[in-house]
């Protein structure tokens, strides 16, 4: 059973120095209300994992603009001037990960894999510090799992057992992050009673979900 909590209770779980995953693709599918409350609270020294640092006024981008991260692990920072500025000034560490590799690393973290071999990045400067392995005549890089203390994600609909349904392109990294954090907090547009979601339509099973916040 997932527990329904207030937004204040949700952001109180995020402690200084934690690693958090934040869903969303240009903010679509990001838990904006929880993020706004976390900006308000100002918890800092965080490490953030997300597809990109979004825009300054959308999704994880707001937390960057408010200087709450010491490090971000993302595939792209180009549309958030706050990220660019802090990165160039040496105030923010940025680990660039190809988008598909990022998705697999988060999935590996959630699903107990020690790593995955991907052809992405072979022969590029991203190979630095990574093990290259040849399998069946083709080269791959060993990429390691990503996990987080807390995942902040967004669902369209949740039941009180934590089963989630997403909508259109708002799905993106949500199902992956749900499994990869010690604590998964979901902002849901709609929270319904257990039994009101057809078990065949569930996109993230409740076993991955700890807390629900009304969106």
């Amino acid at each position, binding site marked *: *059973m997932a527990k329904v909590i207030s937004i204040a209770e949700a952001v109180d779980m995020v402690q200084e120095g934690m690693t958090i995953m934040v869903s969303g693709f240009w903010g679509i599918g990001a838990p904006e209300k929880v993020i706004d409350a976390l900006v308000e609270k100002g918890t800092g020294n965080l490490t953030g994992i997300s597809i990109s640092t979004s825009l300054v006024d959308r999704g994880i981008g707001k937390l960057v603009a408010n200087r709450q991260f010491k490090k971000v692990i993302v595939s792209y920072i180009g549309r958030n001037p706050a990220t660019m500025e802090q990165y160039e000034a040496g105030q923010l560490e940025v680990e660039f990960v190809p988008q598909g590799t990022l998705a697999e690393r988060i*999935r590996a*973290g*959630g*699903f*107990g*894999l020690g790593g995955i071999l991907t052809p992405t990045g072979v022969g590029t400067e991203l190979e630095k510090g990574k093990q290259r392995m040849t399998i069946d005549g083709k080269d791959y890089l060993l990429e390691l799992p990503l996990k987080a203390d807390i995942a902040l994600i967004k669902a369209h609909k949740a*039941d*009180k*057992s934590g*089963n989630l349904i997403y909508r259109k392109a708002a799905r993106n990294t949500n199902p992956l992050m749900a*499994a990869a954090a010690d604590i998964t907090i979901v902002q849901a547009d709609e929270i319904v009673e*257990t*039994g009101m979601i057809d*078990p*065949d339509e*569930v996109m993230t*099973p*409740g*076993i*991955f979900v700890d807390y629900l916040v009304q969106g």
Partner: protein
Amino acid sequence: MDKKELIAKRVAQEFKDGDFVNLGIGIPTLVGNYIPEGINVYLHSENGFTHIGPMPKDESELDPDLINASDQHVTILPGGAFFDSAVSFGIIRGGHLDATVLGALEVDQEGNLANWKMPGKKTVGIGGGMDLVSGAKRVIIAMEHTSKGSPKIVKKCEIPLTGLKCVDLIVTEMAVIEVTENGLLLKELAPGVTVDQVLAATEAELILSPDIKTMNV
């Protein structure tokens, strides 16, 4: 009380409200019948869902597409969800199950487990057992203490392993034994069973808890 019933009843006390658990075939399956009142335990089925419900009461409840991993027609309880095999074993491998209950051929004093292959017998395969012992938060072995009089709790497993140092707790019709860093700790005795009887039926060395209790079954 029947041996198997006693084991299942004791194992069922290990869960707390809200736990997700996978039960293996045999005695472990019986555990589901003894979950204490007020405790909700959600059962995971390897073939791809959570919240296994009871067998269908009649034809009208029977769904041809709904079996458990042992090929029995079952139902799904409210709050359950279906998923594919990769997600199902992602749940297992990723540490999302609070416990798994499995049978054993041998368990040794390092917590090694052998339960998939008997030397000299036909190998039937592995199924999901190796995944379960590598991933579940707690591995609970539910088995009879001996097999045809021979100890199953041994110094060192002699038959092919299912998992290395993976067992957390052993529950038999005689005793409850915890696998600790220092070795096997005898914590509880079944009603009427003595420490000497357990020692005689066990090949592995046992550490006696200073506070051995009687199983509450």
